[in-house]
């Protein structure tokens, strides 16, 4: 991810392990679901799960549009 940022393309890490992402130095970190399904919440019924994912991805897309100066965590 840092190699992508290094050449000037913004990148957002979607992860349940935000503390590691922050320690490693990722600039934009979107808190995701759980480790095995970071873009989802499998406790929800299917239609609400899809809605959860859209909300999460929208937050991640917005993070791409947000100016940051240091590792920053975004929540949906």
């Amino acid at each position, binding site marked *: 991810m840092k190699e*992508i940022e*290094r050449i000037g393309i913004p990148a957002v890490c979607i992860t349940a392990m935000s503390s590691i992402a922050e320690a490693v*130095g990722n600039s934009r970190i979107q808190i995701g679901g759980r480790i095995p399904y970071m873009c*989802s919440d499998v406790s929800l019924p299917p239609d609400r799960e899809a809605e959860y*994912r859209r909300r999460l991805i929208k937050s991640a897309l917005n993070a791409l549009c947000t100016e940051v100066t240091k590792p920053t965590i975004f929540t949906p």
Partner: protein
Amino acid sequence: MAKKVIYYINQFFGGIGGEEAASAPLRIETGMIGPAAGFARFWGEDCVISHTIICGDNYYNENSSDIKKAIAELVQQEKPDLFVAGPAFNAGRYGYACADICHMIQDSCQIPVITGMYRENPGAAMYKRDLYIIETSNNATGMREAVPRMTALAKKLVYGRPVLSAAAEGYIPRGFRLNEVADEPAAVRAVEMLKKKLAGEAFVTEVKVEKYEQIAPAPPIHDLSHATIALVTEAGVVPMGNPDRIKHANADNWAKYSLSGVYDLKEGDYEGVHGGFDASWCNADPDRVLPVDALRYFEKEGYIGKLYETYYVTVGNGTSIADCTRFGKEIAGELQDAKVDGVLVPSS
């Protein structure tokens, strides 16, 4: 009785030439040449270098199977007590050759092997768990320190003496954890360490935590509705069958696949091959890890310009920092050429 050693070096240390001689073919010479002579000198009287193998670094990389076969035959025929390669310092092709050959000899001929190279040499990244690799400096000025350490550890391997920790012997940590009983309980040791840290005194950590490079954040996207967004993941979502054979752990490659015409990842079409988490939820609906359905939704809504038609994948499970950095640079290059505006990176 003297211990018999066969030694491998590259074209430069074999005195054939520098980079221009990197295509020098395999040569098997009797006796000791270059660093092999230094090795024998440090060992002392009961060591004989029966053969020095010299090969150009490019020639090795292009003909490694044949060369390994030839070296294995020599070892089986000559029955040395030890096989040595390098040290390679930070020469990547040479380090890879040294480690690759040593690994093959260790496996197929079951004799002790040893090599040496800089910690970040790709040969070390690939084989440090399998071999004793003495850690050297990053260039040949470190020869004076490297060879005695290689000889000392090699003697232990040949004579069956106990091998101590990586720090004590000077080899690159292999990932072995040896339990030992400390004088004091962990809580006491931790508090003592903390007291020293708070007082600004020196202390030795028991577990080394890697420090990571901080880079400046890339500027944000200004017009998302016209932006091309790509997906890059280390969570191992690949087409069913894992066509590029990305490994479940210690992956040494990345792959890219087309999302052209794909709007929703379906069970059975894709699978999760990351060995560090349970992939069953991912396999049931791969969008849970690679959110193609959500991105297609936003593409349709005009919230983003488009989802880039290719996604990039590897497995980030024990994959070395050196390899990840290399993968990142290669993938970043492709994204830049494709004028991708932003990237989402699902990470396990």
